[in-house]
């Protein structure tokens, strides 16, 4: 409507000015956010990427030269990198799958009216508010057979022969941080999926029930298609965040025992802050960025095809 007023306006300089202001309006709204992101994230990202091509070791004045692709050649030959990449895949897939499955279950349970729903919802979402390193310390404590109850629980369930610390077993240590991560991340999935469930119009279910569709049939033909776009975007974001999050692993296992829990993010952290080799750390981070971008594009493509089908 405003544009209509403008075309009718007889005074050209004034109209031109208003037109510029109107055109600029969305950019003005975006400006503070974009300026901050550009200054604090994108510029440092570009500087950080440039480190990948330099021999940059902190506190070593002899370093700093441009060395081209040398770091990437080193990564290719680095057995620790391939080990960390494999662990990253396991860590990310298992965490996302468990958080997704349990989050969806929880969302479905909370989507029905029942007594005490408000309170229960608030309680089960609480872990999200716990700082992740604090939950890491706490879980590490609970896994310790001297001071924590979990080894005895595992023994009672028949998962362990003797109450041992799962974090010191090279074969199973990764499950420690995974359990902590799943505990912390279920609420995020449950919140977004619950929101999506509640946006499904109720009358569709009623109509389907009248037509004689059973619960399983209704879930498959109504709930899943409605949830699919939300699922795709939530899984995308969580995958990236989980792949990038080193803190639980650094706090709980330091990547050990024998590098069995070292993921790329914690390996980068170690290279940067223990060996102070920022050049190599940046090259590793660049590889990771490329892998995650490729993954994101693949998932977005899947989402578009899903959307196009409905």
């Amino acid at each position, binding site marked *: *409507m405003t544009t209509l007023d403008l075309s009718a306006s007889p005074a050209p300089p004034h109209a031109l000015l208003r037109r510029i202001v109107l055109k600029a*309006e*969305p*950019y003005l*709204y975006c400006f*503070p*956010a*974009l300026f*901050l*992101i550009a200054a*604090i*994230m*994108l*510029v*440092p*990202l570009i*500087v*950080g*990427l440039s*480190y990948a091509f330099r021999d940059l070791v902190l506190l070593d004045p002899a370093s700093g030269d441009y060395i081209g692709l040398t770091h990437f050649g080193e990564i290719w030959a680095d057995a620790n990198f391939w080990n960390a990449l494999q662990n990253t895949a396991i860590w990310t897939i298992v965490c996302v799958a468990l958080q997704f499955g349990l989050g969806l279950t929880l969302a479905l349970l909370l989507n029905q009216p*029942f007594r005490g729903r408000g309170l*229960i*919802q*608030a*309680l*089960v979402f*609480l*872990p999200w*508010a*716990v*700082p992740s*390193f*604090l*939950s890491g*310390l*706490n879980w590490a*404590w*609970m896994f310790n057979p001297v*001071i*924590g*109850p979990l080894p005895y629980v595992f023994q009672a369930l028949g998962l362990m022969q003797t109450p041992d610390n799962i974090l010191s077993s090279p074969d199973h240590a990764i499950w420690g941080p995974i359990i902590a991560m799943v*505990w912390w991340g279920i609420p995020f999935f449950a919140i977004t999926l619950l*929101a999506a469930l509640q*946006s499904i119009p109720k009358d569709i279910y009623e109509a389907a029930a009248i037509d004689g569709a059973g619960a399983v049939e209704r879930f498959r033909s109504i709930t899943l298609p*409605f949830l699919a*776009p*939300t699922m795709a975007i939530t899984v995308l974001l969580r995958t*990236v965040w989980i792949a*990038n999050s*080193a*803190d639980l692993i650094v706090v709980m296992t330091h990547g050990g025992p024998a590098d069995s829990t070292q993921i790329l993010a914690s390996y*980068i952290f170690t290279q*940067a802050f223990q060996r102070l080799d920022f050049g190599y750390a*940046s090259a590793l*981070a660049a590889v*990771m*960025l490329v892998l*995650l*971008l490729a993954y994101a594009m693949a998932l977005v493509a899947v989402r578009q095809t899903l*959307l196009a089908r409905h």
Partner: protein
Amino acid sequence: MRNPGYWIFHYGLLALFVVFALFPLFWLFKVSITPNDLLYSEGVRIWPSRMSFDHYGAVLRHSDFPLFFRNSVIVSTLTAFFSTIFAAAGGYAFSRFTFGGKLWIVGLLLVTQMFPLVMIVAPIFRLLAPLGLTNSLTGLVIVYTAFNVPFAVFLMQSFFDGIPKELEEAAMMDGASRFQALLQIIFPLTLPGIAATLGFVFTAAWSELLFALMLNSSTAASTFPVGLLAFVSKFSVDFGQMMAAGVLALIPVCVFFFFIQRYLVQGLTAGAVKG
């Protein structure tokens, strides 16, 4: 509507979820009230034979924890405030306008979520140090606001998408400018969304460790996660005090989250997440 068998299953499953969610928090609390001499001897008991609040007294009186706590409150509150304002403006533009470069901006926002933040610690340090923004709470607020704005923009956009365009169009017909319509008509309707975004960002800023550790080395400008880490790296780890400090630090963020989580669900329901 459903048979009693289903409800047994329903409540049983929910009970498992509640136990899983709360047991670690219970254990944190249990360790914090166990006297030091019983910490190991009664380590695996569900409740110690004696309880004491000495750890809390020590943390509050003989450590820098109150200072760290104050710093965390300042940093998280300001970060939540600025992120939400900037994200509200950006989310509004995304929701109501089509403009050139919009898709590129969305792409850029997504890229900011893709890389390990470890990568930009050194560049950010070099950017902030000459400006006097390291060892400063202001520096942390700026960095945290930038980190949280991308997701907050998407969140706010989805809240705005849930509010019919016709509302402000009607107001604009009546002679209000778009900005007036935004403030007087749309803003009150977005309050749940604003509450949710505030809570989300506050929680994230409250928990951040890496940049708090790297940018601020002085005690005066440390936040509580850094302070908590100090308990670990001291010569002898005082677990009781550490857990007591942890419980104290959890209280505000848990209370906050307890009340805002339903707005998070409500607001996302209304909005664009459905596709």
